[in-house]
């Protein structure tokens, strides 16, 4: 993958690869530290956090398997910190979550530690972690109903120095403990983030010691340049094309009475090796927690583009130089205007932007792009709170990660089955049933992939997941807001769309009570909650799907015999009882030509 085209590089190609991988190894070490030391399961199990190394001149350098929406933006967060603390020094650590100054949303606490060597600031290491609670007015970190930041109520830390000389500022720790729910959980997570950053600092210093400051600075430039070249090469392989397109978000009673459209203009210019995404022609900020931040609007568009390039692009500031995202100030999907709330600035509208970008590529040519992936961030990934009767009514609050979420199909591959939502990109870990039940007073009745839940096509979407769960012996509250109850992920190039998501309370008498998009769920003992997310959309015509794939799907109960027959035109014979399912080839050929004629 490595082609060094610089005429006179100071670091040869092999050494560049070794150094870059070594930086990624540090990021993985930081990630492991955070994961293993964390107290909340949103961090310790689901890995809803990301670590990154920032260059000496505030560019995102190395991110390993971090979530793109988290890490790109940490660069400008540190630029703000420079402004507030021009005399920053070794031993300092900063806490930042200001959505108006580079951060994603208030729930993502970022710990940033500048790394010095021989008095020179060589790197900054960062850990951005989605907190179980951030002191909002309601026990959730996704507050759709927040009319503004005051109503949201989250504690904001605009580049606050939380450590000096490697010692905590106890004033700030005390402030947090007084306002954040389950304070010991927050403090444990804070310590884990500090530990992760300090481990990163330690390892970075070892690398600088080995190569020397000068070479390290040189490396940063060359690696970012290389990443840019790689991205440019990948764009040059794309067809030239311009497309005006739109996606939308479901209505959300009472905050969004109508569907909201997102206009997205995509311009792929292989000659200039550049992709431009224009998001300016969109509505102003709204009085709800759904506004994006500058960082998340930019990264959502870029992430959609990166998924569609046929190269393994490193997620860093160098690659981002080739993607221009045009934003407008005061726009819902742009640069937010104070005091609008960005409580859900990492999900919902980012998912719309990513899905729309990816399906636009598919419209531009066979073989390109993807069908839509799951929109529905169900209650099974909501923020649950209550008290635990098993532990003397000890209070708890935490985001769960039990949903699956089908990924959209590509031209060559079926969609993933644990894609989560587009912004998760299949990178998040999943909660263990046993760990969840040990931690929280819940009983999970079932968790499984649903038959016929995906969009069909030559390649089908990933199946949806259904989770049924209920509280054990106490009341439980779950707050969340989801998309995808009225809009299904769409298929591309003849592929079909999948099904709608749902969140339903099943009362002890068996009656079912569906929840709207903005969920304020109160479960009594005996109640059950059933959540279904969405499968991904399909790619290409279903009658072109290989018979073997259809048979395998029927055998494994991803596709029913009926859908195999009516959608794929494949006639299944034999019995699952003795594992003898097979295809009647002749009848299938006949059926398929019938379907093709009809279409």
């Amino acid at each position, binding site marked *: 993958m490595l082609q060094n085209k610089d005429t006179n590089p100071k670091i040869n190609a092999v050494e560049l690869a070794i150094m870059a991988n070594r930086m990624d190894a*540090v990021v993985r070490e930081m990630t492991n530290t955070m994961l293993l030391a*964390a107290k909340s399961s949103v961090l310790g199990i689901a890995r809803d956090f990301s670590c990154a190394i920032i260059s000496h001149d505030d560019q995102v350098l190395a991110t390993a398997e971090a979530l793109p929406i988290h890490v790109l933006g940490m660069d400008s967060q540190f630029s703000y910190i420079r402004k507030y603390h021009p005399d920053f020094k070794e031993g300092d650590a900063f806490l930042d979550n200001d959505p108006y100054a580079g951060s994603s949303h208030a729930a993502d606490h970022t710990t940033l530690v500048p790394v010095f060597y021989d008095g020179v600031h060589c790197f900054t290491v960062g850990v951005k972690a989605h907190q179980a609670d951030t002191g909002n007015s309601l026990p959730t970190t996704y507050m759709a109903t927040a009319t503004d930041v005051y109503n949201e109520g989250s504690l904001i830390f605009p580049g606050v120095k939380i450590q000096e000389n490697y010692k905590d500022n106890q004033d700030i720790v005390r402030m947090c403990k007084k306002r954040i729910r389950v304070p010991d959980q927050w403090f444990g997570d804070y310590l884990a983030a500090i530990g992760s950053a300090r481990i990163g600092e330690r390892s970075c210093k070892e690398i600088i010691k080995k190569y020397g400051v000068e070479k390290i600075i040189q490396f940063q430039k060359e690696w970012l340049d290389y990443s840019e070249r790689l991205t440019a090469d990948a764009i040059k392989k794309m067809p030239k094309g311009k497309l005006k397109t739109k996606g939308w978000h479901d209505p959300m009673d009472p905050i969004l009475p109508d569907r909201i459209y997102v206009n997205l203009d995509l311009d792929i210019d292989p000659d200039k090796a550049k992709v431009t995404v224009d998001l300016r022609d969109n509505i102003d900020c709204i009085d709800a927690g759904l506004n994006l931040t500058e960082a998340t609007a930019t990264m959502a568009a870029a992430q959609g583009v990166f998924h569609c390039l046929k190269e393994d692009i490193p997620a860093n500031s160098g690659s981002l130089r080739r993607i221009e995202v045009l934003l407008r100030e005061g726009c819902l999907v742009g640069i937010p205007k104070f005091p609008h709330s960005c409580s859900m600035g990492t999900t919902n509208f980012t998912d719309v932007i990513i899905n729309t970008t990816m399906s636009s590529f598919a419209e531009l040519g066979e073989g390109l792009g993807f069908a839509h992936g799951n929109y529905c961030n169900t209650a099974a990934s909501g923020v649950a709170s209550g008290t635990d009767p098993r532990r003397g009514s000890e209070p708890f609050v935490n985001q769960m990660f039990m949903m699956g979420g089908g990924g959209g199909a590509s031209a060559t591959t079926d969609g993933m089955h644990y894609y989560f939502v587009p912004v998760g990109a299949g990178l998040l*870990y999943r909660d263990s049933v046993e760990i969840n039940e040990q931690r929280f007073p819940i009983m999970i009745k079932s968790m499984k992939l649903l038959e016929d839940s995906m969009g069909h096509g030559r390649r089908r979407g990933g199946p949806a997941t259904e989770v049924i769960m209920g509280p054990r012996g106490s009341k439980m509250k779950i707050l969340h807001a989801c998309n995808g109850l009225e809009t299904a992920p769409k298929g591309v190039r003849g592929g079909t769309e999948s099904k709608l998501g749902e969140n339903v309370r099943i009362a002890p008498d068996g009656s079912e009570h569906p929840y709207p998009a903005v969920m304020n769920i109160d479960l009594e003992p005996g109640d059950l909650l059933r959540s279904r997310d969405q499968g991904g959309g399909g790619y290409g015509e279903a009658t072109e799907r290989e018979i073997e794939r259809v048979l395998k799907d029927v055998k494994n109960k991803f596709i029913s015999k009926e859908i195999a027959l009516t959608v794929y035109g494949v006639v299944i014979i034999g019995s699952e009882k003795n*594992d003898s399912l097979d295809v009647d080839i002749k009848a299938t050929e006949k059926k398929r030509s019938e379907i093709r004629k009809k279409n």
Partner: protein
Amino acid sequence: MKYRIAVDTGGTFTDVVVADEKGFLTVGKSLTTLDRYYNGFKAALDNAALSLNTSGEHLIDNCEVLIYGTTRSTNAIVENKVAKTALLVTEGFPDILTYRHGGKQGVFDLAVELPDPYIPRRLTFEVPERINAEGEIELELNTNKTEEIINNLKNMDIEAVAVSLLWSISNPAHEVKVGELLKKLTPDIPFTLSHKLNPIIREFPRTSSTAMDASLKPLMQQHLRDLEEDLRGSNYKGEILISVCSGGVMHVQDVIEKPIYTVKSGPAMAPVASIAYSSADNLGDDIIVVDTGGTTFDVSLIREGQIKYSRDTWLLGEWTGHLLGLSSVDIRSVGAGGGSIAWIDSGGLLRVGPQSSGANPGPACYNQGGTEPTVTDAAVMLGYIDPEHFLGSRMKLNQEAAKKAIQKISKPLSLSIEETADAIITLAGENMIKSIHEITVQDGVNPAESILVAGGGAAGLNIVPIAKSLGCKKILIPRTAGALSACGGQYSNVVAEFSGSYYSHTEDFDYEGVDKTLNDIKSRLTEFKNYLQSKNINEFDEEYFLSSRYLNQQWDMEIPLPVNEIKNAQQLQIVSKAFHDTHFQRYAVKEEDSIIECMDWKGRLIAILEKPTIPKISVSDKKIEKNRESESYFSETGKVATPVYLGERLLPGMVINGPAIIEEPTTTVVIYPNSKAEITETRNYLIHV
């Protein structure tokens, strides 16, 4: 004279290493016999016996310990040739193996199709039952429904059953009951219960190892029982120990119960041998270990004398493949070896592997019916392997057959035979370099800072250009390189672990309960120790561990227990301090006023086996004599007269300049132009690149 015999059966070759009382090692080699592995072992043993001027029977009669390693189980998993296995899970959770942990490699790459789960959905059956986190029964096991499921397994030709129910670790009653039903209704089908095999919280890793273990049972139990029967039939009376994935050995009976432990066990022994060799020659303790057999190329890593382990060992890809669920030596494998087949793809490009000619038919030059060109055939055509002197002249190779096979591809490529052969060797090397990069460069380790220890029958053919491309300056090729994994068996220990779960925390510590748990572990450990002592093993190490965490932390951390017992506050204080210190060392923070939760307790017994000491010989001032010359081809020089040396004649202190070829009874070492080999005091080869 008493002997210890170590055996390693690979996909192509069976290696035997015999150690005598003085520590001298003798290697024997033969083709693996897939129908009855013992025959290949016996042939390899006879082969070693020949060098010792005795008979295989004599070696068996005088053998005290036999250590057996095999790649049989790994190959079965990788080639998807395990038993047709059913998985029984708690109703409502059929997709544990499909979901895995979540996560994947490649941030932006979404056009990846996830591999199928280890056991497909169609062979997964949901058993109505439920136990909760506290081990209380929420829903009684429905035995009628379970019996119905089990009875239908027969109609589906199921050969093994894995049972993994939620919370079986806190109350195994339902798994035990399902086990009884299986025994009653399908007495001939082997099964594995998750709480017995791997009693850890988190349903995915536990279910994954249970599925793997069950799927290996028909195959591996037969395999190990055949081996034991054949050995006993040949009047062997000593111990039979089996190599396991941790780089240690276990008794055959224990492994028959848990065959999953043999997965990746063969290559796990190579680093054990490498440490012994490298330290005997004072060559440092940062080592890259490569082992090139006939079928696969394995790489492992030693940093500062410590073998790199992996807690998450995946087969067929991290996150998206299959999780072993047990700690094992970290090994990366690719399909590349002496038997790898060279072919031309549809685009007209030359490719090597991953298909291998295996032991049967083997490379074309083996004259066993193989017609495809392989790496070994290329080495014959380049004059690296002498068809008359292969494996110490024990096997005659057919040069004409090798030539014919290579011609099949040299013609369409419009290259000469030698150029084609050279390209085959180079390409095979590229695949190997890539997998060395994976374990070093990708983890930020610079291969240039390590010594390369190369083993396996085919390692010497191209290790010099590989080292050059990696920037490695030194390569150590042991004289016994042909059987590196088997050698590891000679230097390994018996390692056994005994664990118990007992929850308590430091604020209100249950001294009595913990003491009872620790005593129970100690007594089981002592029982095993007594058993080993009855077998004349007398040197032991005992270590005790505690898995604990800060209150409400998600993951627990294992620390060595700094005290033998916890009976008072003072001893508990020492344990707490050890936890805080380890936490600080590992995660750079500690929370000294937090409660510490103690979860699992473990005792580890290491029975230190007597090992051969590596004898040293003083430097000789004898002159080197070549045996003959060979017409060999190198890309730098073209065809050139190349001296051939016999390994047995080479003595410490001698230096051989490339180009040259050194012939050992089980391997051939090619010293390329511009490199040189030095014979060390232990009579191993140190190549300077």
